[in-house]
């Protein structure tokens, strides 16, 4: 059978747009592996934006800051192995302001109880539950996508990443 082709930091082949009418920019076309390979570790680079909602591409390398959001977020590992550690804060709702949106970066690990951790490989998805602190740890470089809402740490650099 024909092999299933996945991408990686080391190996990806970006597609293309053949324009008949209009502009390539209308499609905001990028490649998450290319974006992650050119970004500092854990920069939350926006690669998809639908009004306030975003998909971010992150280069996983070493330990990330501790993060939290007032709503559920999700992560899918697109390359490499990443462990996610979780802390339930002692004071519920203390990490990200109620009704706030997007990911907050915390100043170190918050006070609270360890909830445990999940070990993710390529193609694995985990929930980043509302109100819970989480940290990504990766021994080797990898790539994550995060489903969230545009937040204070989301980086938009469309000119640098999109086909034009």
């Amino acid at each position: 059978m024909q092999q299933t082709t996945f991408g990686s930091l080391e190996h990806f082949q970006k597609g293309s747009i053949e324009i008949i009418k209009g502009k390539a920019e209308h499609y905001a076309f990028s490649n998450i592996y290319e974006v992650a390979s050119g970004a500092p570790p854990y920069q939350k680079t926006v690669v998809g934006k639908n009004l306030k909602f975003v998909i971010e591409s992150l280069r996983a390398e070493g330990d990330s800051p501790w993060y939290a959001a007032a709503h559920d977020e999700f992560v899918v590992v697109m390359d490499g192995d990443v462990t996610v550690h979780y802390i339930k804060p002692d004071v519920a709702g203390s990490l990200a302001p109620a009704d706030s949106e997007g990911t907050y970066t915390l100043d170190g690990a918050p006070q609270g109880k360890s909830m445990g951790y999940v070990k993710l490989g390529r193609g694995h998805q985990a929930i980043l539950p509302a109100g819970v602190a989480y940290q990504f740890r990766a021994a080797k470089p990898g790539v994550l996508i995060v489903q969230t809402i545009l937040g204070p740490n989301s980086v938009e650099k469309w000119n640098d990443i999109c086909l034009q």
Partner: protein
Amino acid sequence: MMDMSTLPQNVRASQPDAITGYRTFQLGHFEFSRDAYFVTVKWPAQGTQHSHQMHADAFLRAMMRDIAWGFFYGWVNFDEVLGTRNHYGKVDLYAGSFNASYKAAGVDFLEQFDTPVIMATFKAIMKDWVNEGFDPFAAPEETGTAFGAKHGDNVAAIERTRIATKRMPGLEGDSPLRDDFPVNRQFNDVAQDEPEIHAEPGFEKELHAFNLFKYLSRSDVTWNPSVTSVCKESLFCPTTEEFVLPVFHGNDRVEWFLQMSDEIVWDVADKNTGEPRARVTMRAGDIAAMPADIRHKGYSQKRSMLLVWENATPNLPKRYESGELSPYPVQF
């Protein structure tokens, strides 16, 4: 004897044809009939009758998606002439309304129906026209033929619907994982390992992870976006794709595609006229927006994994139509 017992009350159908065995259906001023090879649709325009034909297999694959998706978002074009537009409670059925030539000639026709009425009719058509051995949800290599006179049915295949997920599959009280489904023949090389979850006592129900690629490798249908994560109105709806998207989808909002494996080529055309605009080739890791003013149809030579990303906020169609929102999601 006409057997009406299996037809809902609001479905208008003929007796089975003596030669082909298929019923003919009326929906408002539209008529749908099929023979061994073709589906024929008729409608009134300019005081006369106009008609259109599609290959039976292409028609049934398109109608299957429209039913399973509950008329989806915006326009579901079966081809360059026939299609539906979802108004979420009501549905337009049209012929030529989004085809520049039909529109200019004034031979287009559009009629609006309450969703339950058009849904019941579409389901009755599928029940009658899908023969034993043909699965309109499958890729051509995976299933039998749609052609010939009526022989049996495949009700089980056509009763599959879009999976509804509240938060994430596998969570307690949410949609199930797919461990009971076999791995698709074209995903035999996809790793089936699950993430390791090490929850501290008391947090077993809060930590959750699963192998999304494994889940997709076991999808038993093609081109059927199904929700796997919910961040307010942001929905990840991945799906497995093979052969051709059976419809030309014109969305009433912006949507995004992230190619998770292999390759898809998208034909992109003007939503209103059908004029070609672009061909977008997406390989693993590529992400691209589908603007709100286009229609698109995908081609996937190998079964591939695609993340379809939707914003399900209800008021979006009006905001795009009024011009409040640009059809392009980002300006740079």
